[in-house]
């Protein structure tokens, strides 16, 4: 009898292959979904229009372009719809099938979403190149350490996002429609993640919101990696950024697993 982690590890290549196949099979949906994440461009147009009349709080037009294209890239790579998948499967009762498999659904869902990442990069990378060319290197960090830590930071942001979305999806065990909770979450997230404006600009007018945001997970899902990409940070800043990211990644994964366990005990399959 193999242990659970060993089992999961052995199934990993297959799970990844399934994820790739799913992405390819639903390519039109995938593309539409990617196009939908255009909100950063809408914010970008507002702020560049502002900056074209002069710098806004030390942010030039190029800085805004770099920031919001960074937002687009990070969001492109980290967003997922696992909450809708779970709530749909709970509602239809098809979740029962997943419960029979010897692999924890958290891992199954996570690998399926991770498998889509290369395809997402195909969309994110050209944007990154446009970012480099259009705004010049001045708005991007040249610190080798920050560049090296960029991928781990995005990976942590991915994990935090995935854990939270998974937990939200599990709420469907109790209320069958997780959309209300998701909307609430999305509101908080767009306010506190740096989605609407860079956190330092928020800080100038609403210091309280910005300070709260820096201890909540939302900022570490988006704003933090983007700032790592576009700003020069001190060593202490980078260290604290990663400490917060790791802490929230652990918390959100644990929360997802706990909510899942309690939810499954509560689960009565529809028609089953």
């Amino acid at each position, binding site marked *: 009898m193999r242990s659970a982690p060993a089992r999961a590890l052995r199934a990993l290549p297959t799970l990844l292959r399934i994820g790739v196949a799913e992405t390819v099979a639903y390519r039109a949906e995938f593309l539409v979904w990617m*196009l*939908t994440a255009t909100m950063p461009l809408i*914010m970008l147009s507002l702020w560049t*229009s502002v900056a074209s009349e002069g710098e*806004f709080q030390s942010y030039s037009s190029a800085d805004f372009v770099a920031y919001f294209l960074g937002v687009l890239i990070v969001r492109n790579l980290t967003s997922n719809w696992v909450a809708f998948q779970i709530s749909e499967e709970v509602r239809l009762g098809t979740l029962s099938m997943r419960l029979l498999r010897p692999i924890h659904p958290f891992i199954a869902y996570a690998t399926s979403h991770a498998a889509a990442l290369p395809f997402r990069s195909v969309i994110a990378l050209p944007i990154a190149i446009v970012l480099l060319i259009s705004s010049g290197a001045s708005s991007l960090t040249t610190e080798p350490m920050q560049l090296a830590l960029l991928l781990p930071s995005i990976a942590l942001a991915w994990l935090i996002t995935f854990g939270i979305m998974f937990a939200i999806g599990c709420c469907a065990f109790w209320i069958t429609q997780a959309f209300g909770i998701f909307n609430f979450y999305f509101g908080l997230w767009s*306010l506190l993640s740096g989605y*609407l*404006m860079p956190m330092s600009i928020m800080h100038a007018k609403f210091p309280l919101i910005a300070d709260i945001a820096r201890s909540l997970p939302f900022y570490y899902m988006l704003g933090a990696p983007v700032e790592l990409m576009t700003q020069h940070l001190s060593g202490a800043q980078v260290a604290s950024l990663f400490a917060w990211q790791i802490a929230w990644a652990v918390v959100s994964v644990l929360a997802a697993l706990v909510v899942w366990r309690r939810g499954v005990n509560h689960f009565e399959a529809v028609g089953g």
Partner: protein
Amino acid sequence: MSRYFSLFTVQLRTSVATAMQYRANFIIEAVLSVAWLAIALLPLIVLFDQRKSVAGWDQPSALIVMAYFMAVKAIMEGMVTPSLVGLVEKIRTGAFDYVLLKPVDSQFMVSTAGYEPQKVIDLIGAFALASYAFSKLGVWPTLPQVAVGILLLIAGVLAMYSLWIICAAASFWVVRLDNLIYLLMAVFDTARWPIQVFRGAWRFIFTFLIPVAIMTTFPAMALLGRLSTRTTLLTLAGALAMLVISRLIWRAAIRNYTSASS
């Protein structure tokens, strides 16, 4: 005609009854609406804290564009979205066949299948925001300006509705409708800023190809008395043209429809 009217009232009555069943939900929606308004306004608050104007718009005028955005969104989400979300399910399960069998127009049937009366709260919010903006501006719109403003609001809603119908029709051929809905909502989000904020190709696209400008910016300018008669007429003509085009596309799509069950 009277048949259509009575169908419309029946659907509306059932929706109101359903909404009244969940009173707690109603209050939660109200609280959420206010919260969303605050979040949507945040960039404008931060921005105009330091600037007098952006792209030719001062804060009160920009708030009026935002109020129009909220109003169009509220009307869409209250009157059209619930029906079209139901349409997804009907196409998937094949129940859409029954809609086509009914002796009334199919576009009418899918457009009026359900309502969310609680969106009235958002509409009131939009009205309050516009009133606040005008009180800050110190100049109230004249009666003709209000009349044109309301007329263009209707035109804006019709333009948005046309885009919805085109998406619904497209879903017969290509992708799942719910994805297209998300895409459309993302595009409509651009309507929260005045069109002048966008530059170059984007402004062209959002004025002519996907005319979000006629949904919020032009009506707001009309209410402020800044829109020329020519642009007013063009806006109305544009909305009407979209309505006609969407109708033609819908009918072509229906002819092409192959049921899920056969």
